[in-house]
């Protein structure tokens, strides 16, 4: 239907995580607003399990393109298939997660269809029969809402964790398999190998992030933060100052020139809170700031502030958590 809401289901070689279905929650709200169907679309070598799960998470219909050529994720190939589906069915809106994979597919598919898209969206609402998409601009100091009037569909990438996970139920989806032939020889890229990161840091997906800045003073500070993160099942983040001091690799950097994250808990240790850092984490649900300087700007963004030396506060927190969580 012309005003259906489509959600792209991302996966890595068929492997799914509940996060793959994250956007079906907001998708369902939008579809209810339009009085239309919530549909999922999926591209891969084998899509049956994905389609089944998408139904359980609320999709009424699943559109799928299947083929061996889609075994490895390749942005170009996936985007061609996505553009084919979106052009054929022209839903009202198509949502992708703002991950490296989701962004690759969304951007290239939109370009193939000849229009723009809204990226890293943090607000979606129906306004005048169209979806209005809000995104943060300039370090979150401004929020800009856009409507893509010329695009059919409107395409948006949505910041991971911006919306609550949908409940998993017993629903099943009607599966529509579309044939879209793409020869392997016509895909210009080939995945040679995947090297899993030693620290397996996945900041974007983490519910809890313990982050350190210049105030840590040295590399050893991060070992202490890692201990706290491990105890809480979280990941370690860092400010640019800490990365530039080579205390921790760039993949941990949060902020304007690093990653944008939206965890449920963000614990900032020895981070002053420059706007460039706030840009990457200010939409976190709960922010805890630990800093020696009572005037540090981070306290203005914090839900809870502790004025003190992280070297004393963090070990004390670890001790308390150990007791209270029985770990």
């Amino acid at each position, binding site marked *: 239907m012309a005003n259906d809401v489509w959600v792209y289901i991302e996966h890595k070689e068929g492997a799914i995580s509940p996060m793959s279905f994250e956007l079906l929650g907001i998708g369902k709200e939008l579809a209810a607003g339009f009085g239309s169907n919530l549909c999922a679309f999926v591209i891969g070598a084998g899509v049956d399990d994905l389609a089944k799960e998408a139904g359980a998470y609320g999709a009424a219909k699943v559109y799928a393109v299947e083929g061996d050529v889609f075994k490895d994720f390749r942005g170009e190939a996936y985007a061609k298939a996505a553009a084919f589906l979106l052009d054929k069915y022209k839903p009202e809106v198509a949502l992708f997660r703002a991950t490296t994979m989701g962004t690759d597919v969304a951007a290239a598919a939109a370009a193939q269809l000849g229009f723009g898209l809204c990226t890293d969206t943090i607000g979606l609402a129906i306004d005048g029969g169209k979806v209005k998409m809000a995104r943060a601009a300039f370090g979150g100091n401004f929020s800009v809402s*856009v409507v893509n*009037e010329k695009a059919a569909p409107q395409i948006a990438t949505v910041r991971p964790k911006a919306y609550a996970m949908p409940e998993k139920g017993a629903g099943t989806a009607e599966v529509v398999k579309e044939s879209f032939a793409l020869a392997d020889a016509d895909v*210009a890229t080939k995945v040679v190998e*995947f090297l899993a990161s030693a620290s397996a840091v996945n900041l974007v997906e983490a519910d*809890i992030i313990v982050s350190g800045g210049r105030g840590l003073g040295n590399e050893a500070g991060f070992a202490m933060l890692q201990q706290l993160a491990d105890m809480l099942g979280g990941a370690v983040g860092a400010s640019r100052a800490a990365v530039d001091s080579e205390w921790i690799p760039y993949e941990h950097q949060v902020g304007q020139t690093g990653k944008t994250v939206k965890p449920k808990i963000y614990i900032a240790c020895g981070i002053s809170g420059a706007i460039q850092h706030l840009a990457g984490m200010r939409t976190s649900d709960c922010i805890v700031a630990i800093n020696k300087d009572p005037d540090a700007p981070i306290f203005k*963004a914090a*839900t809870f502030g502790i004025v003190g030396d992280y070297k004393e506060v963090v070990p*004390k927190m670890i001790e308390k958590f150990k007791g*209270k969580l029985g770990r």
Partner: protein
Amino acid sequence: MKIAVCLKQVPDTEAEVKWDIPKGTLSRDGMDSITNPFDEFALEEALLTKENYDGEIIAISMGPEGAKDVLRNALALTVDETALCCDDAFAGSDTYATAYVLASAIKKAGDVDVVFCGKQSTDGNTGVVGAELAAILGFSQLTQVGKVRSIDAGAKKIVVERAVEGGIEVVEAKLPAVVSVIKGINEPRLPNLMGIRKASKIDIPQWSAGDLGVDTGKVGAAGASTKVVEIAVPPPRGAGEILKGELEEVANMITDKLIDLKVIK
């Protein structure tokens, strides 16, 4: 090998940002400008590629006349050619229009084997122009690149490492390719005084919509498909609570409060 590098002029990341609210665009008056930090890595990668494999570099920017500064900086670092895509019709372009204009410039430059660009700009922050460029040009799409392992212009092949969620993906691709790079791929060099002096005397060509054969209906504010309907200052985060007391007491409070959130599993 012919190398292109796309450079964007952005407001200094340290500067205070002003919006032209009625127009929904950035007010650039009186703001210090710099080369987009991610594009500095792209430029350095272009220079390294030229040094390692032999070739020539064209640096391309799109923007008002003032954006020549970023191209002059590139000239000081010894790029061979520059071009500024500059036309009143381009003002207010969205990401697609920007990619379309840059793609037209890359076609005009001719026979480009590899295009380097930064993974995103620090002002627009969209991070999609690289992928859009690849799609429009029909070049290999290589985003989030943290290392270029090899480029073989003869065999038309490039091997890169992409930093994706959870690890590094090694990808082999056909040339021509668009490579968008992340921070840390290299250490950008600074121009020396002689380079700066030399660059100051070089004319920077300007390419208009007409020169590029660009359909003006598809660019600028008129052509942009995404329309800004509202700019707002988000509500400030509620005033935080400073936990006061002895260390023991504070640690007790914060751990209780965090456990109460029911997020820790």
